[in-house]
């Protein structure tokens, strides 16, 4: 039976890697749950309201986007629009070229991963240095993040120490504190030499035009303290209507993502520095990125645009825990990625049409989502899309449902099949030309076929009851 690519990846994943992904996702998930339920009377109500706020934003982007653009301009920012990833990269390049800038320091932003910005700039001879510790390690290893919040969840300290040694960041030492100090020392001079600081945005308030950035390491703050030009790459769905809504969303984001009531740094940026300030960017650019989001907006899966990239659905997901992030072959792994990645792939939906199948539909992702995205329903919608479009990956290894439906809508045929199934008790499944049965039997025993026994029992019980007088 042709296995699904994600399943094959999971089968090849070293046990040690699976164990470390499991331990760390489980730990964060459990702390998250404890924190939310210990601290709030009704955390599920919180998630529901936050979801309603974000859904409202998604469904009103036509008015909110021009409104926030005007606010940003009034605050002194320059606003750029990029319909594709290529356009977004080109917009950043133009901003840098206009300033004669050669060196960029980058804070962690998923949208820059999505559009391949660092690679794009490096190809054109510019430096684009990742400063989040995990992303920095991903960059020096020419690797990819495997988790939205914890990019190197798939690496152990020995691999990291070897990479540092190779890059000339000191003799081999796999103590996490030493690794961190070496990165601190190396990167702080890079910030000070850089011309441009690039960040994403966790939220953007329409009311005030404030960009909200949350980090723990302080790297995005360093980007905005040391450089003279700030570029913010912002997906068009990142808006929130009012500043006060941030009170709700910030309370949920830290707890959901890293099990902290609040991340260490929460920065509110509403414009370039004012005259007289000794440090901070004198120029601020916002690049709004579509890159497939308007395609998503036009589908019944638009609810996924509520996502605030906390990673809670990855942490709780039993499939992610078995397979790790690279199994999803895309920037966004886990349940959110299984929905978002095939949709953002635009013309290439078929290439990722298996991802919506990579779920037991257990619903744990929806249960933890701080914006209450009905992820299982969206996965189901995408499965239907995969079937309608005839994407081969969407149906690899799956039993044919048409024949089954025919059987299950004709009681006579159904009863015959119930009787005929008894063959299974005599012929080993591995000899039957039914791949699904063989796949089942290779790992699990099949119970005895007792098709029709219940109906016989019930008829006998009814006859016996008729013979007995009613009590």
């Amino acid at each position: 039976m042709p296995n699904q690519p994600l399943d094959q990846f999971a089968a090849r994943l070293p046990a040690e890697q699976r164990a470390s992904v499991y331990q760390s996702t489980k730990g964060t998930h459990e702390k998250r749950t404890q924190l939310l339920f210990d601290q709030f009377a009704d955390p599920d109500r919180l998630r529901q309201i936050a979801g309603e706020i974000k859904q409202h934003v998604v469904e009103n982007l036509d008015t909110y986007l021009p409104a926030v653009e005007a606010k940003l301009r009034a605050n002194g920012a320059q606003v750029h629009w990029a319909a594709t990833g290529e356009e977004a990269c080109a917009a950043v390049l133009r901003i840098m070229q206009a300033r004669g800038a050669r060196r960029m320091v980058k804070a962690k932003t998923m949208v820059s991963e999505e559009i391949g910005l660092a690679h794009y700039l490096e190809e054109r001879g510019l430096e684009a240095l990742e400063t989040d510790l995990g992303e920095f390690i991903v960059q020096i290893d020419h690797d990819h993040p495997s988790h939205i919040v914890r990019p190197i969840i798939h690496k152990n300290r020995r691999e990291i120490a070897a990479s540092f040694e190779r890059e000339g960041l000191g003799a081999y030492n796999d103590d996490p504190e030493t690794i961190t100090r070496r990165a601190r020392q190396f990167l702080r001079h890079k910030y000070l030499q850089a011309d441009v600081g690039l960040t994403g945005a966790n939220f953007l308030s329409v009311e005030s035009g404030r960009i909200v950035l949350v980090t723990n390491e302080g790297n995005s703050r360093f980007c905005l303290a040391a450089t003279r030009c700030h570029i913010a790459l912002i997906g068009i769905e990142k808006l929130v209507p009012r500043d006060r809504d941030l009170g709700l969303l910030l309370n949920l984001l830290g707890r959901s993502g890293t099990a902290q009531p609040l991340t260490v740094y929460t920065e509110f940026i509403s414009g370039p520095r004012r005259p007289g300030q000794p440090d901070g960017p004198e120029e601020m650019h916002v690049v709004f990125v579509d890159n497939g989001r308007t395609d998503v907006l036009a589908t019944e899966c638009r609810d996924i645009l509520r996502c605030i990239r906390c990673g809670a659905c990855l942490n709780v997901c039993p499939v992610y825990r078995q397979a790790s992030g690279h199994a999803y072959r895309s920037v966004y792994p886990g349940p959110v990625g299984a929905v978002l990645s095939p949709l953002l792939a635009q013309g290439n939906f078929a290439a990722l049409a298996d991802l919506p199948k990579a779920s037991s539909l257990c619903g744990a992702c929806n249960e933890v989502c701080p914006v209450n995205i009905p992820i299982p329903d969206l996965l189901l919608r995408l499965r239907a899309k995969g079937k309608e479009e005839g994407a081969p990956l969407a149906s690899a290894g799956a039993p044919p449902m048409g024949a089954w439906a025919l059987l299950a809508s004709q009681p006579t045929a159904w009863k015959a099949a119930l009787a005929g199934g008894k063959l299974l008790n005599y012929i080993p499944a591995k000899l039957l030309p039914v791949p699904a049965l063989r796949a089942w039997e290779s790992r699990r025993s099949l119970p005895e076929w007792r098709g029709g026994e219940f109906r016989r029992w019930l008829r006998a019980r009814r006859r016996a009851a008729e013979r007995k007088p009613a009590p």
Partner: protein
Amino acid sequence: MTAPAPRLRPAADRRVQLMATCICDAFYDDVAGATVEVLEHLGCTVDFPEGQTCCGQPAFNGGDWAASRRVVRHTVRTFAGDCPVVVPSGSCAAMLFHGAPLEFEREPDLPAVAALGRRTWELADFIVNGLGIRTWPGRYEARVAFHRSCHSRGTASGAASDLLLASIAGLQVLPFGEGEQCCGFGGTFSVTFPHVSTGMGTLKLDHIRAARPDVVVSGDMSCLMHLGGLAEKGGQPVRTQHLAQVLRDALRHGGLLPAASA
């Protein structure tokens, strides 16, 4: 996932229709039988529409919504009527009150599909919230690990099952690690993603075994078929029972039902 409100409540005659589920029709006749005995013990008149087949979930989950709708339409016709439909499966119940309306959202017969959803109850939910039963009589001497199936997330079934089990004399419910995690069955997922599915199942079995139960109980036979089959294939079988069987056996051991009926 939430059950629709308001749901159709049982009338004074407690007449219900039983949806036995395809998995019980094919493999687990004793579970369907136990469901009948439990409901009749509670004074219900149980109708069994003979034309029933399956709720349509396999094709729905498989993305073949046209095929699934065909089966759902058959189910809607088969379960015509105005009494509650009781099903010993959180998964099939959720298919009828949540899944089917989703795949029918653009279909003209959505109202009929949604109406069946409002009549449909998972067994434990029906006993506790439909009939108002809070404690279960009889006796059942066992240490039980209860696997709350994923399709009961967000519904009242999990709490209802906990309430019933905890009230049975002699029965001890054992907590175990990561109870909220999926067993890895997931329908066709179990055969299209065999490594991930069995990896999840093995983890679930490890947690369950650590609690040393006499029996693993669930409201969904599909989870138990996967877990039980995996344990048996691995040479360390575990005893599994549906909640309906536990309830029925408690009545039997308490002398409230004949030892074996029919």
